[in-house]
């Protein structure tokens, strides 16, 4: 967060205006960040086999995307791949892991369990319905479990987000989360807005209007008029 301003203040401020240097630094830093993600060895369930082990092995080869340095220690990692179901006992631990991670940190939720609870969403008394209730998630990769190729698509989406998104002038401001499997011109935001407007139309009750239609409404109105004129 703000590496250029904290570590290299002289270089940035020496230029009058400073805009050119800062913009170029942004791009360089974001490019470097996006191509050197260090994932955390954190897997709770089946997705871990596909997301962290199969992709890390030779056949799929995560190293092509510069993200093969899987770290066992949280403090050395900056990418958390939530691979598997998160239950209530695990939730505080996962929040702790997230807060220990090096900044800027990114989260990919892979598999239905991490996105929404998946097959355990209904009737399970322990599951957390979506890992984004605990940590902010940047990219969702749906599937049960997703193929390694799907995970790569999610990783590339995250890399694109890092390259385009964050600037050192506005640290911490990040693009909206995107779902990796959606078409390019549809965002999660659009879907959520549509659902919201439909729900609002169905569920909004105009209390005053509803009260006017009641049989006792006329009597109440007459009583209010009488008392106010008195």
């Amino acid at each position, binding site marked *: 967060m703000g590496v250029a301003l904290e570590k290299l203040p002289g270089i940035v401020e020496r230029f009058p205006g400073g805009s050119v240097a800062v913009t170029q630094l942004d791009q360089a830093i974001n490019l470097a960040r996006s191509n050197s993600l260090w994932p955390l060895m954190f897997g*709770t*369930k089946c997705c871990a086999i596909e997301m962290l082990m199969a992709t890390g*092995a*030779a056949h799929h080869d995560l190293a092509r995307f510069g993200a093969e340095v899987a770290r066992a220690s949280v403090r050395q990692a900056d990418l958390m791949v939530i691979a598997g179901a998160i239950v209530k006992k695990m939730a505080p631990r996962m929040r702790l892991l997230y807060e220990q991670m090096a900044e800027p940190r990114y989260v990919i939720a892979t598999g239905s369990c991490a996105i929404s609870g998946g097959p355990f969403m209904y009737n399970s008394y322990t599951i957390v319905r979506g890992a984004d209730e605990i940590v902010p998630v940047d990219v969702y990769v749906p599937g049960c479990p997703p193929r390694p190729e799907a995970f790569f698509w999610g990783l590339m989406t995250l890399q694109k987000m890092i390259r385009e998104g964050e600037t050192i002038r506005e640290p911490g401001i990040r693009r909206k989360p995107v779902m990796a499997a959606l078409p390019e011109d549809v965002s999660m935001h659009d879907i959520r807005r549509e659902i919201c407007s439909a729900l609002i139309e169905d569920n909004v009750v105009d209390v005053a209007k509803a009260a006017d239609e009641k049989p006792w409404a006329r009597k109440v109105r007459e009583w209010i008029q009488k008392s106010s004129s008195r």
Partner: protein
Amino acid sequence: MSVQIRTLEEHLHASPQADSELTTQEYLVNMGPQHPIAHGSLRVVLRLDGENVKFVIPVPGYVHRGVEKMCEHLTYRQIIPYTDRLDYLSAIMNNWAVAKTVEKALGIETNARIETIRTIMSELQRLQSHALWWGVTGMDLGAYTAFLYGFREREIIGEIFEETIGARLTMNYIQPGGLMYDIQPDFAAKVKKLIPYLHGCIAQYETLLSGNTIFQERLRNIGVMDGAEALALGCTGPILRASGVPLDLRATEAYGVYDQVNFNVVVGAVGDSWDRYYVRLHEMRESLRIIEQLIDNVPEGDYATLRYNEELILPEGLHYGQTETARGAFGVFIDSDGKRPHPRRLHFRSPSFNNMWVVTRIAAGWRIADFIAIQSSLDLVIPDIDR
């Protein structure tokens, strides 16, 4: 025989037994739930004296999803996908356990083709599971190359699964009364091509890891458990067989077409970590032998004897069925009321749960690094423990 029950508190604060002249302070170390050795999220509390492990307490429950309770609202066909997500490395054998229990309770007959394909698929899955375990054990003990080799074979077997089943991990293949899909036309040819290749791979494993002096030193005579103790703890699978007990459900129950093929039950001599390693490596060869005998003449027939929309209502009472997964006996215990298509209560007897408690007995007295080797040789799958 009197049974002494000790609580967790008493274990944690028991007085240290001085085994050396140098007195050290005892302390507790949490391993997990986030730890690379846990292969998931298992928390292990170690009571340490210096580097010596005094006592080990596994604390499961970090992936407990309440599957058994959920199954009370599901039909028997709907339960099968959930068994994939328990021990995901032997999904097909888990499917088979449910299918077998339902078939036995309802008296459903299957044909020879179904049973043969089920057996072949199970053995392929066992190969895949053991290949992964071999790679991960190598990685735990410091040989990262092993991981790459183990996954090479896993991907090749996975391609065969993908062609027929359409899934890489969560198979959902074996249904009560049959299979989900028929095998692809070139399935037999591909598997036949695979067998000599995998024989070569296992020989390569021996040269890569088994012959390594450092690797042998880290496993030999470490974590020794005798057969009686293994039986008392309820161990099954390669762990029990490594301790010298020739108990293999494939041989004793002879479900599927295991009674028509020749294979050896591999048994260890000492019961140490090395035996547990070697039993699994030999089991891979035996699995290849079983597939070799079956693949040439898969009988003709229908791949499902039951229509998928038929409602399955088990007769009232208790039903139990079990299969031998890559980790041991996976049992399904169903209590049906005879009226609804759901179980009244359901319990999964998962092999990893019993195998986990082995560490409380055999890890004491060893160093922390040896504890890693012991836990790695147990081949635990954490979602199978917690369910």
